[in-house]
């Protein structure tokens, strides 16, 4: 089977110029792969670099060395060297990212926030909104909220909007950063279901999950990030 993500010896260091050029090594020697239909969970204490690794796979943080190979439209692209246009294309067609916090655009209705990736992918407005509504319903967001911008919602509601926004696509790779952090048991169970559905569709996933119970339910493999600690 061909891996969807294949990372070899990737590393990341922040240089803080405003603090006199202090070098802050984050991770080094990051190496693992993710196959289609598999969920790899990154484990390690807070500050070990789990989120940084996810951000590097999404092209949000730059990679200072090594390679981050991603299968994009049938060929492998090294994100460590990709052009901005390639990264944008990868985000449109290959990698989705569910961040910890929703970064909502002011004034845009929840339904459209969730449907955005489908609309950008060329799906017509009505079916895109229908799919968005179906996901919001599953995640127990009441229909009366759908036409409102999510900026006024509670933390848990915003996170569920964010999850719906991430899971609506049929992208072959999904990155999940603490998708269940502020959810109650019923909604956590919905997220587990969604992850399992994605696995059956062959989606490759990398997740950060602190909740032990959820981790056991979704992880096919656990990669211990402490072994990549650069500060040691």
């Amino acid at each position: 089977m061909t891996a969807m993500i294949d990372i070899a010896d990737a590393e990341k260091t922040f240089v803080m110029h405003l603090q006199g050029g202090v070098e802050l090594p984050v991770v080094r020697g990051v190496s693992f792969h993710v196959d289609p239909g598999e969920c790899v969970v990154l484990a390690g204490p807070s500050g070990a670099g789990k989120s940084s690794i996810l951000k590097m796979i999404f092209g949000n943080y730059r990679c200072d060395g090594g390679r981050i190979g991603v299968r994009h439209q049938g060929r492998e692209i090294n994100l460590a060297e990709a052009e901005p246009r390639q990264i944008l294309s990868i985000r449109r067609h290959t990698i989705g990212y569910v961040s910890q916090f929703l970064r909502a655009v002011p004034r845009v209705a929840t339904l459209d926030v969730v449907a955005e990736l489908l609309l950008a992918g060329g799906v017509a407005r009505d079916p895109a909104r229908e799919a968005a509504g179906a996901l919001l319903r599953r995640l127990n967001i009441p229909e009366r909220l759908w036409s409102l911008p999510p900026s006024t919602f509670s933390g848990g509601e915003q996170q569920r909007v964010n999850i719906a926004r991430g899971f609506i696509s049929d992208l072959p790779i999904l990155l999940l950063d603490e998708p269940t952090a502020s959810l109650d048991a019923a909604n956590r169970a919905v997220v587990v279901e969604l992850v399992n559905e994605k696995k059956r569709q062959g989606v490759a996933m990398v997740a950060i999950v602190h909740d032990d119970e959820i981790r056991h339910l979704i992880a096919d493999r656990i990669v211990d990030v402490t072994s990549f600690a650069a500060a040691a």
Partner: protein
Amino acid sequence: MAEQDNDQPLLLAEGLGKSYGRLTACRDVSFALYPGEVLAIVGESGSGKSTLLQLLSAQLAPSAGRVSYRMRDGVMRDLAMLGEAERRFLFRTDWGFVHQDPAQGLRMAVSAGANVGERLMAVGWNHYGKIRDTASSWLERVELDVARIDDAPKTYSGGMRQRLQIARNLVTEPRLVFMDEPTGGLDVSVQARLLDLMRTLVNELDLAAIVVTHDLAVARLLSHRVMVMQGGAVIETGLTDQVLDDPREPYTQLLVSSILPA
């Protein structure tokens, strides 16, 4: 638009520079802009970003380098070599220019409808009813009250003027829009509405845009790519969220760390 079309740059800057005597306003800028791509140029006042915008939009002649633009026939042309008719076509039809001060981009004493219709007449439209219908539909698109189509923009608020200026620019379906601090001088609530509108229009029309702004939040919301300028030179460039979340250069780190938390 076919994928193949999108693989060709729409605008190409090569070694672009401008100096006034010994003063260098802008030096050695090179980049390619692709169809549908939004590029933000950020930096403080005096960093050279407005000079660069004027060079890119052929309002100022460069002292060094050149700007090429892919005309609708697919041929890349050096802007300095264009004939008068081709220049006029670009300025009146294929390009838009949104000024920070709407009074610079609008005719303040003629009606809103005429402000939008004028760009259509310039490209040969002569049917009054059609021009008025198109103007009305554009006023609606930028969320202006169509009942005020006969009022002059001098009676409009700042936010309404800016939306009218956008309608006037987009009515000819340009492929590239230049924007100079499009949200500068507007109230924060008005800014949010305008940004949302611009974001929607850029997506729907598959517009390419070059936006000069000192506001990093505007760059984050509108642009795919960002160029950071300091002292007339581009010091850092890349994917917008990458440059803003993982800034590499000292000056970019300073800019990013100076944003007030929301």
